[in-house]
């Protein structure tokens, strides 16, 4: 940027706002603002991409209780989506028309926004919830470079478990759950047929493909960044992961080239694929929508390339945070802390049992939490997911040795990794060249 450019930097916002003000008559402005100011109560907007009907019902109960306890505050829940929140929030941050509380976004997204000065420090809310109620280290992923917390976990999610059907395995003569990629591939080959596909892996140009594929790089013994956050993707592990991922495509439904979370989940739940890759929501959905296979469903950690490589679980560490530009921050903090209050919080967790796992040990031990049909029906699966999620990682925090990566949110939003997968798998381009390009792209994004 030229020196002249730098001198203009400070006044950009004013320039843009002036641009708007000059454009329309002042009358228009008053009309708009009177519309907004008409509400006398404080209205808090709450966004979350987790909004299944059962979860919505749980939020509603929590909101009603919160509103009753805090007269004068209204809470409006608004759903967003895993694939849609990035552009929606970019527009919201730019316009200043922000929700007050945002939940269930991945931890790395919050870190990225915090690094840009868009997120309110969360330390006092964590204290209000009770620091000693958390599992030890539960909030480590939310620690920013400046020592403050950028948000807190509202739960843990083991997002890439391998879901299996015992009946199909038996029919195909498969005794044990696959532990390596070769075993997984041959199991899928055996179970494919009669309109059933092997696996619903995502190949779409979207965040799920990026997030899931990072796991495959780790399960081949590699990583996207080195612990000091140098780009480390150009490695044999990535080539191996791409090769395996490519070999799996013929075992996936044809539409997998556009799959994201919803399609992938529906494919397994409806019985169209023999394996699944998803979090605990599978349990609730199978029981509600396809009870015929409910007794046959189980999960294990996703296989690695060879048995000497340890498992790696993707935990997005679903978060709670408050945007720095939001109005009514005190009320927002009150609401954020209230979301962790036992009866409501437990109902919220029960809305998707095993999907969002508790981060407060006081809750996990609470008999009221244990008192749930699905949690009692699948104790092994739930325990495995809880243990895997607790040891889980994501791009913001790839391994315990890694520094926190404040650019992770932007890297996922850029779809750079999903594009790499598509170029190799769908277009058949040379993996080495594509990974080289991707490494360059990642460096650009890290330095931007």
């Amino acid at each position, binding site marked *: 940027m030229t020196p002249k450019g730098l001198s203009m930097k400070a006044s950009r916002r004013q320039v843009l706002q002036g641009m708007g003000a000059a454009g329309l008559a002042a009358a228009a402005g008053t009309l708009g603002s009177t519309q907004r100011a008409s509400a006398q109560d404080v209205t808090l907007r709450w966004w979350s991409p987790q909004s299944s009907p059962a979860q919505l019902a749980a939020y509603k109960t929590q909101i009603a209780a919160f509103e009753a306890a805090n007269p004068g505050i209204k809470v409006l829940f608004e759903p967003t989506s895993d694939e849609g929140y990035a552009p929606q929030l970019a527009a919201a941050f730019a*316009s200043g028309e922000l929700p007050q509380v945002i939940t269930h976004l991945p931890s790395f997204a919050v870190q990225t926004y915090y690094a840009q000065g868009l997120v309110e420090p969360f330390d006092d809310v964590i204290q209000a919830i009770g620091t000693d109620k958390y599992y030890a280290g539960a909030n480590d992923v939310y620690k920013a470079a400046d020592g403050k917390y950028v948000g807190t976990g509202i739960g843990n999610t083991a997002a890439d478990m391998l879901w299996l059907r015992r009946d199909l395995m038996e029919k195909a003569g498969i005794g044990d759950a696959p532990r390596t990629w070769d075993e997984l591939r041959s199991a899928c080959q055996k179970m494919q047929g009669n309109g059933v596909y092997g696996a619903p892996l995502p190949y779409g140009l979207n965040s799920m493909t990026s997030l899931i594929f990072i796991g495959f790089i780790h399960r081949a013994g590699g990583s996207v960044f080195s612990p000091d956050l140098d780009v480390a993707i150009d490695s044999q592990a990535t080539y191996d992961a791409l090769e395996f991922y490519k070999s799996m495509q013929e075992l996936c439904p044809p539409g997998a080239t556009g799959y994201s979370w919803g399609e992938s989940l529906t494919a397994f739940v409806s019985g169209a694929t023999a394996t699944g890759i998803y979090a605990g929501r599978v349990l609730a959905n199978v029981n509600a929508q396809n009870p015929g296979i409910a007794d046959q469903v189980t999960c294990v950690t996703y296989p690695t390339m060879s048995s000497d490589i340890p498992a790696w679980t993707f935990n997005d560490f679903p978060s709670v945070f408050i945007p720095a530009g939001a109005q009514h921050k005190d009320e927002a903090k009150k609401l954020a802390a209230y979301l962790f209050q036992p009866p409501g919080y437990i109902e919220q967790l029960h809305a998707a049992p095993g999907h969002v796992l508790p981060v407060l040990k006081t809750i996990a031990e609470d008999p009221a939490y244990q008192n749930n049909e699905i949690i009692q029906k699948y104790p092994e699966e739930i325990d495995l997911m809880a243990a895997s999620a607790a040891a889980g990682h994501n791009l913001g925090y790839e391994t315990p040795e890694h520094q926190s990566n404040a650019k992770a949110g932007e890297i996922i939003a850029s779809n750079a990794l999903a594009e790499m997968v598509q170029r190799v798998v769908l277009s058949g381009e040379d993996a080495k060249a594509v990974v080289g390009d991707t490494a360059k792209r990642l460096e650009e994004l890290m330095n931007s």
Partner: protein
Amino acid sequence: MQRPSVGSRILVNIVTWTVVLTVAFPLIWMVLTSIKPQSELFRIPPTFLPQSITFEHYWRLLTETPFLNYFRNSMVLSVSTTVVVIVVATLGSYSLVRFRYRGREALATLVLFTYLLPSVVLIIPLYLMMVGLGLSNTVFSLVIAYTTFALPYALWLLRSFMAGIPEDLESAALVDGASRIGAFVDVILPQALPGIISTALFTFILSWNEYLYALVLVNSDSVRPLTTGVMNMLITSFNIEWSLLMAASVMMSVPLIIIFAFLQSFLTRGFGAGAVKG
């Protein structure tokens, strides 16, 4: 003209109706899907006609989802846009057709130019303008945004309707001592009424169907219209319920079906006037 044989007439009928039904098939399939129970959708091979008919998806749509809320927003938005645009465009097109002043020709060309302008060029400055004015996330901001495509469209349509009204009628009224405004109200408006209705319907449908501006300018459920609201329901990560989405699609098209059933001649008239003749 020589009469075509009975055989060829039957053939033409069969071919035409096959084509028509093929074109209409996606819509028929939409309605059929919306009344099938969820379990029937996942059957392989799929059933063509529903084995059991259910209206539970419609019921759930109306009671468990914010559909009615989006519907109301869309209604408020489309009606406001239509009213604003029709009032401004009726006066404007009358002036463009029947008055002489400097810049009139240039203005007419400008109208035509903006009629062709892509929204995507205006969207970023408009977005920043709404942010600057503190209007983002209001119905008002969408009404303003929608005028950018609806006003040129309405002006162009009404202009050709107005031009079709014989000037003698107005002159006669003026000779009888009516004022220009009086003549406009008594003579022009009644004559132009079918054209105005037709333009209003087009404007309403355009606003009802708009997606891009609603996607960018609005992020709250309290103002979100149907287009972006229903799309939001699709891209959730927990479940994709096609029968619910098809029910939403049918319900979303209800205003259109009503217009088609009762006011279709106005739509065809609009086509004849502005849209094609240019």
